[in-house]
């Protein structure tokens, strides 16, 4: 019996978010080798930044924890963080992949004891909290980071001029001389799970983002509500730290709009309904008001919409917010919309305005030299087993976590199918 080449037993997984992790563990538990290449410093991606999932309102850390367990237990998973796939060439069963590893400046000896942070003199915006607050140049990506290792932001670190972290680290884990390096490997199939990024609210010239500090985005709201967020889970006005008694949610902020993202981002209506519950669970007297074009809660999510409106007393108005101003005396925000059902223009005062910004593909066109096809909206088109390259999660289009996980499982199975096809060839 012929031996199967190693490449024909391994699957490259581009992206270490919930979809990439799922595809990797599914493939590994079936006996295949999975190589996760993640551009960030940790696995878990966007899901790690969420406070709760809809519709169950449970914390994503729980599911992530389970997946990290599976990841550790399954044989044959290799993880590269701060890594990028530069090139993929070849065909099913024999893809040559070039990977570039960016320096973390912290090696595997790190125990995440945190002795380095007090001595670090440089700050950087806290990317995990979407720029709310700062971290030191040497930072732990988040409390449950996988791998549980610090990293140094090379763009702000003083390196040899400072090196105080090197002095205090008793494990010798800081290595400021670390250099980027490239390497290549062979795989038999690829799963593209490059995920999404929140649409840049700064592009929306009429909704006050950037002009008024109390206009935030939905992903920032997740961080505000999260116990490990910048406010330790208190929902406070970013401008003055004041209590939030009313929130206006602006749906379709940049989605379904030919000037920005022409498509529906699919998850924002559910996300806003979910975030309205964050407010009410902290402040039962607070009011949440959702302005929508169409409240899109497909399938069984309709029940969640009903529940939130009935049990959490959330008001909804059909009509898109197209003007955000500030009361010059009270500094409260005022949103304005046409209430379509009564054909009246209304204004609503709110302490906080949350822009329901949408999903944009993370993968920059041309960044990864690979035989993949992007659609008009820059999402990756999944073609068939013959290609040996499959997609999972928001790389393929806007979707919720549950769908992304299902897709990732199916992508793992398709990838295994491609490997087996190649082995028979």
């Amino acid at each position, binding site marked *: 019996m012929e031996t199967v080449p190693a490449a024909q037993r391994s699957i490259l997984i581009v992206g270490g978010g919930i979809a990439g992790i799922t595809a990797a563990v599914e493939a590994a538990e079936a006996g295949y080798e999975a190589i996760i290449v993640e551009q960030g410093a940790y696995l878990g991606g966007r899901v790690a930044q969420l406070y709760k999932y809809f519709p169950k309102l449970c914390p994503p850390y729980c599911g992530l924890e389970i997946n990290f367990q599976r990841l550790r237990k399954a044989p044959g998973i290799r993880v590269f963080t701060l890594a990028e796939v530069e090139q993929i060439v070849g065909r099913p069963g024999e893809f040559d992949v070039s990977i570039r590893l960016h320096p973390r400046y912290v090696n595997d000896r790190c125990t995440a004891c945190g002795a380095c942070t007090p001595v670090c003199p440089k700050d950087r915006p806290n990317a995990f909290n979407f720029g709310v607050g700062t971290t030191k140049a040497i930072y732990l990506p988040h409390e449950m980071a996988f791998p549980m290792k610090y990293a140094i932001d090379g763009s702000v670190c003083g390196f040899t001029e400072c090196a105080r972290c090197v002095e205090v680290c008793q494990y010798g884990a800081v290595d400021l001389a670390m250099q980027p390096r490239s390497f290549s490997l062979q795989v038999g199939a690829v799963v593209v799970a490059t995920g999404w990024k929140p649409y840049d609210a700064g592009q929306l*010239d*009429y909704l006050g983002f950037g002009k008024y500090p109390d206009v935030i985005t939905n992903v920032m709201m997740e961080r505000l509500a999260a116990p490990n967020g910048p406010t330790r889970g208190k929902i406070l006005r970013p401008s003055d730290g004041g209590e939030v*008694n*009313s*929130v*206006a949610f602006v749906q*379709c902020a940049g989605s*379904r*709009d*030919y*000037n*920005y993202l022409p498509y529906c981002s699919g998850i924002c209506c559910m996300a806003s309904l979910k975030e309205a519950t964050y407010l009410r669970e902290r402040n039962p007297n607070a*009011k*949440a*008001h959702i302005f929508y*074009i*169409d409240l899109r809660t497909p399938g069984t999510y309709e029940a969640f919409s009903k529940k939130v409106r009935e049990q959490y007393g959330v*008001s*909804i*108005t*059909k*009509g*898109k*917010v*197209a*003007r955000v101003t500030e*009361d010059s005396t009270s500094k409260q925000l*005022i949103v*304005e*919309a*046409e*209430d*379509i*059902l*009564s*054909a*009246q*223009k*209304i*204004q*609503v*005062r*709110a302490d906080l305005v949350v822009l329901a910004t949408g999903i944009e593909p993370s993968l920059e066109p041309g960044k990864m030299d690979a035989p993949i096809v992007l659609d008009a909206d820059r999402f990756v088109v999944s073609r068939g087993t013959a290609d040996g390259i499959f997609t999972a999660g928001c790389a393929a289009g806007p979707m919720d976590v549950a769908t992304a996980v299902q897709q990732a499982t199916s992508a793992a199975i398709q990838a295994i199918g491609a490997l087996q096809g190649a082995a028979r060839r």
Partner: protein
Amino acid sequence: MAAATLLQPDLNFKQRILSLGGADLTACYQCGTCSVVCPISTADNPFPRKEMVWVQWGLKDLALSNPSIWLCHRCGTCSAYCPRDARPSEVMAALREYSIGHYASPTFMGRALSEPKYLPLLFAIPIIILLIALGLLGRLAALPEGQVVFSKFMSTTALEVIFIVATALALVGAALGGARYWKAMSRLDFGFWILDFGLRTGRPQSKIQNPKSKIQLIPTLLDILQHRKFRQCQAEPVGTRRTHQEHLFGAHLAIFYGFLGLTLTTASVMIGLYVFGYFTPWPLWHPVKILGNVSGAAVAIALVVFALRRNPDQARPGKNTYSDWLFLWILFLTVGTGFLSQGLRMLEMAVLAYPTYFMHLVFVFFLLAYIPYTKFAHLVYRTVALLYAAPSGVAERSRPQALAGASAPPSEGLAP
């Protein structure tokens, strides 16, 4: 059970609006961004969102029987911010053009001015009338001898008879059209469409009470003289996008006062002639003559601005309809032949001066006699709409009252 409202969609109406420049309206998904960014639509009477759905559904009566289409001054902010690129400002313009034909009295005049095939006939009328006048005056055989004086060619009396009759007919047409529009608005009383896309049966309280005693003639005219609406179009921009706001106020102000100046010039000449016995032509340095020339120049410059805005080289120009160009060209030809006549007269080029003057009279006739049926009719219908809406405050720019602390919106309970 309340009687059901039977909707009677008029698909020909919809098609006509699409062809008049509203072609993108089918993309509208009724989000109301347009109504909110509109600098002049009010809390009680937001537009143009409802106009979009009325046209989509072919609800002609609703679309044409409310003042909104004329309260709009086409700054284009709605089109700049529309997430669907449905271009509401173009739809409003198409509705205005349609409504001029719709309310035209007599009806055939509306059709005559909206279809190019009738253009020769429309020109033939003043040409024949003026030729008959010249024939009766015995001027068809030979041009007047000596110094060029237009009153030797076409007598002042003949001009008065022709143009007073033409103006009177135009006034009658304008009055009839305006009255039909007013009646249509009163009949719908634009109360019942306020709710639920206008589909709700029954009639909640009317938004516009219009007992005639409350007509605010003077304030409305003052608004028009000050171009207050145009200035409001420039107020409180929601963002940074480019609209048509910059050129509209200045250019329209110039053309408006240019026309007023020309009217004043004509009146002064009449008074000078009959009260003081000054025969034309008056010298160029004469104050009235200066007023006339400056006014004419103001109109000409504004026309260039308006024509340039219709330049198809722009990123996305609106549709330029026959009616748009007809109006611009007639204005341009009127002013152009006016200046040319004056120049040729001073140059003593009789052979060219008299025919040019004849053409000038033809264009003036076209401009004045057909006022209620060309785009010029906006002065009738816009004034009627402003007068109609003024007592209710619906014509008044206002922001809605802010509800405290995200309180329940008016639609709560109606929502699905």
